[in-house]
């Protein structure tokens, strides 16, 4: 099995297209032996990143594209999601775990991404998110 591979997609701002890309990446990392928890974490992070790109970055405008780049190297999968929006500062998102925010319906996506990934950073003008998840050994 190859130890490195790279794939790229450019999709319209469409949740169905985003699901299709996620399925492809999930199939890849499952084949590389990522545990159920690792797959869950990366999939959830990709879902949050793609929904943010489609809904907030591109404002749901189907004519705007989302670019997805995937790389697998030596046990680690990296995914970069780029939208055409003005970008944002993740520091501006209020902490959803504070008592006063606990019952607010939104604002939890980035927190989940941070917790389930090994690495996450925003690039460019804040319109690109880079995510990395490395394979861990099954605990059980």
């Amino acid at each position: 099995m190859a130890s490195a591979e790279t794939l790229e997609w450019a999709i319209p701002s469409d949740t169905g297209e985003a699901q299709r890309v996620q399925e492809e990446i999930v199939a890849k990392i499952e084949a590389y032996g990522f545990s159920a928890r690792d797959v869950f974490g990366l999939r959830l992070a990709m879902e949050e990143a793609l929904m943010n790109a489609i809904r907030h970055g591109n404002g749901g405008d189907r004519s705007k594209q989302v670019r997805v780049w995937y790389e697998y190297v030596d046990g680690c999968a990296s995914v970069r999601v780029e939208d055409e929006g003005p970008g944002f500062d993740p520091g501006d998102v209020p902490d959803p775990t504070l008592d006063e925010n606990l019952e607010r319906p939104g604002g939890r996506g980035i927190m989940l991404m941070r917790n389930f990934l090994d690495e996450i950073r925003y690039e460019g003008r804040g319109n690109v998110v880079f995510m990395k998840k490395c394979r861990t050994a099954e605990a059980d």
Partner: protein
Amino acid sequence: MSAASHRRIEVEEFGDVSVARFADKKILDETRIQHIGNQLFGLVDEDGRKKIVLDFANVEYLSSAALGKLITLDKKVKAAGGQLRMCNIRQEIKEVFVITRLDQLFKMFDDQESALEKF
């Protein structure tokens, strides 16, 4: 009234308690979450149900957008003087609730029997 062809939850009544079981494994995409939200809100707003148990036995994935619907449902049930309980939540999803501190807000039980007990 709501499209029966798009049923995303199966509801079973146990006395005055409604047990709503998610039909989907993945509660991710926006349209699906919207349908689920509408069906769940209908239990409170249209059917006047006040005691609801959400059964997550089938659910493998859940996004932050779905959490938003659960928070809104919890608020609706509380406003109606009722209570929302959850059960059969797999470990990864429980972790989602813990990370977001929603385990403090939601009442979670291991299985349906314990969720129904003394409800």
